[in-house]
């Protein structure tokens, strides 16, 4: 039958798209809901619920035209008011949506008619349409906000049927999906299976058709199985050593640079990712058109690093506590490897594993030195600006990085009118960031799915969600 069974590793906290924070939840966002626009992960923006959009010349007024006749799963027609209410809900701090910061720039929302939404921005912003392709920015029916967390109603290709916490989510085909002929599957079951051994066994025995985000260490093994296809794609999800420039000794760019120079990036890809990743300069993945190909991936230079440290006043190195979050294995491994790699230049690392919630509350954005990592974001600007611009919302919390040259490059890129111009600016940004690193970003991760041979029409998305609209089972 046309029921695709998918294994996901963790339970969902919420089904409310605005509040989602986990990869597993994002899968749901794209299966059940739609956004105004869709980002293809290669920088392109496509229409989704919005048929078309236009921006004013000052890039401050954005007008979206909704696709007509789109129905929510409960049968009601989508209206502009729904879009407005959805965005306003995201803007409400009490909702606790991580997408809120993106909409700080919105001054007002108007709905001149049922098919039109007009956004007035406080600043010019060329990437505004891309924001609507973001994970949390799914359009919800404005009369169902109360129940969306438990029984979501959207406009997406699949209709939510049931959720047994800890066990499974069941979805069925949306016959009224606004793209004709899609989806092709009749139903989807997301099975929650935390133990990788269990996932693999289930896939191999055919209990499961697809394992989402296959554990990296199982990939080699999985590839040997003739019944299984392992599909890998490069993402801009990255891990890094966060160094807080507001705290000693990382306030000195030479220290940061010395640490970066010590890291053997290809080796870290091996150790932390079992090879399932790509060394990079910043979060721009090598597969991206903006990636600076002229800049070589740095090779370890112990002597050079020692010299820099000595210049910075640490001829014998120093001691530092490196925090790693428990339950994020790639970042744990990165931390453990870093401890070893930094030893030759005299940096003695005291490694501390911290439970996730404590890590979020007490370490992230507060400690001087820790490993962390971030999901791919829909646009290069949203991936970089918040982290590297001195006013970037995450920069101020993460590493307090200030580099006027980078600020200027990033601002220019926002206002850039052509692709070439933007590409050049981002190339320059990478060179600057390599010279004056904020932290050490050794690699971007691959996203790997494994599925049985009879699953067709599936390809892994660099954004790590599951696009199952074209997928079929034979």
């Amino acid at each position, binding site marked *: 039958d046309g029921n695709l069974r998918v294994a996901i590793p963790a339970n969902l906290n919420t089904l409310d798209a605005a509040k989602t924070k986990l990869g597993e939840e994002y899968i749901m966002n794209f299966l059940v809901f739609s956004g105004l626009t869709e980002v293809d992960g290669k920088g392109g923006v496509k229409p989704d619920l919005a048929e078309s959009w236009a921006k004013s010349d000052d890039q401050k007024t954005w007008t979206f035209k909704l696709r007509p006749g789109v129905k929510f799963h409960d049968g009601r027609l989508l209206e502009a008011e729904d879009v407005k209410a959805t965005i306003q809900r995201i803007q409400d701090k009490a909702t606790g949506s991580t997408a809120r910061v993106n909409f700080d720039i919105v001054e007002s929302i108007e709905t001149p008619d049922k098919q039109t939404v007009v956004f007035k921005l406080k600043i010019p912003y060329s990437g505004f349409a891309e924001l609507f392709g973001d994970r949390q920015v799914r359009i919800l029916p404005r009369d169902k906000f109360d129940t969306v967390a438990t029984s979501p109603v959207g406009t997406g290709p699949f209709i939510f049927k049931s959720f047994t916490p800890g066990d499974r989510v069941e979805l069925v085909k949306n016959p009224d999906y606004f793209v004709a002929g899609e989806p092709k599957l009749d139903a989807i079951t997301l099975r929650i299976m935390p133990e990788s*051994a269990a996932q693999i066994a289930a896939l191999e025995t055919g209990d499961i058709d697809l394992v989402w985000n296959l554990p990296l260490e199982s990939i080699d093994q999985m590839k040997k199985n003739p019944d299984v296809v392992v599909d890998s794609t490069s993402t801009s999800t990255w891990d890094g050593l966060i160094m807080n420039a507001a705290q000693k000794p990382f306030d000195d760019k030479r220290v940061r640079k010395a640490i970066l120079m010590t890291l053997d990036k290809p080796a870290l890809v091996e*150790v932390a990712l079992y090879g399932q990743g790509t060394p990079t300069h910043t979060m721009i993945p090598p597969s991206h058109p903006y990636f600076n190909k002229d800049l070589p991936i740095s090779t370890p230079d112990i002597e050079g690093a020692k010299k820099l440290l000595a210049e910075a006043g640490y001829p014998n190195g120093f001691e530092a506590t490196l925090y790693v979050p428990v339950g994020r294995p790639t970042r744990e491994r990165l931390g*453990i490897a870093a401890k070893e790699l930094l030893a030759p230049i005299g940096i003695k690392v005291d490694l*501390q594993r911290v439970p996730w919630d404590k890590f979020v509350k007490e370490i992230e954005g507060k400690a001087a030195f820790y490993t962390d990592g971030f999901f791919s974001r829909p646009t290069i600007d949203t991936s970089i600006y918040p982290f590297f611009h001195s006013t970037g919302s995450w920069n101020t919390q993460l590493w307090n990085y200030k580099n006027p040259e980078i600020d200027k490059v990033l601002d220019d890129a926002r206002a850039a009118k052509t692709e070439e111009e933007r590409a050049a600016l981002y190339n320059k940004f990478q060179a600057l960031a390599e010279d004056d690193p904020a932290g050490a970003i050794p690699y971007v991760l691959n996203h790997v799915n494994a599925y049985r041979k009879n699953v067709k029409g599936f390809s892994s998305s660099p954004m790590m969600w599951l696009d199952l609209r074209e997928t079929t089972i034979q």
Partner: protein
Amino acid sequence: MPKAETAQSAAARPRRLWPRGLNGKLVIGSAVLLLLIVVAVAAPWIVPYRFDEMSILNRLKPPSLRNWLGTDEFGRDVFSRTLIGARLSLLMGFAATAVSLAIGVPLGLWAGYRRGRVDEIVMRSTDVLLSFPPIMLGLLLLAVTPPSLWKMIVAVGIVYVPSTVRLTRSVTLDLAGEEFVQAARARGERTSYILHAEILPNAWPPIMVEASLRVTFAILLGAALSFIGLGAQPPSSDWGLMIAEARPLIDRAPWVAIAPGIAMGITVIAVNLLGDGLREALDPRMHRKGG
């Protein structure tokens, strides 16, 4: 005269302080455990490699002459890590038991000897603690503060306090009725002296037997907590954490999980043997003569 009778049958079988003939379980158990302790203590000097020495090229290698038990995902020598892990796991087991004894035994002695209200309060508190399934209590306690080995030791120790209190109390209740305790009171001893010099030495054997079995529970509970992520902190690693971390690799590099698993198995079995042996050796009922 029931009392006179018990006296007679007791007279017929002299109370034994220590086993006359050593039993096999006791000998094997203590020999293996002793060996383990020696290895654990000496581990830093006898391991072929540093336990956290990584070699990326050399990772997940199967057992060989170079790495007797193979290497793990960071290319660390599993044999060395297993030996070093013995320190943490044994420390965990013994220290947690020690904690539970340090808290539980005095409380149990006190409650059993004083009876009355003190007893009531202590027993009701243990009732509450006992109503938490062990792992839950550990979880809740550990969730409060950042994990670290000593906190885990304390948490696991606290998990076992109620049962220690109960056991000590019941032994004390029995002993408090013994005539040598009455005699001590008759010559005007203080309560503290009676508790530590008259009752405690005689309460030790059953407590020790229980405690030795509890060491194994503590090791296993510690492993379960490590599994959940609240245990030992890497790169140092107890066996539980080693198994937990090696688990995704189990079919790719089974030796990484099997080595600490077997080490743990041996330890637990040794302690169990020791405990059972002690129980058989110390429990006079086990030696009851045929008639």
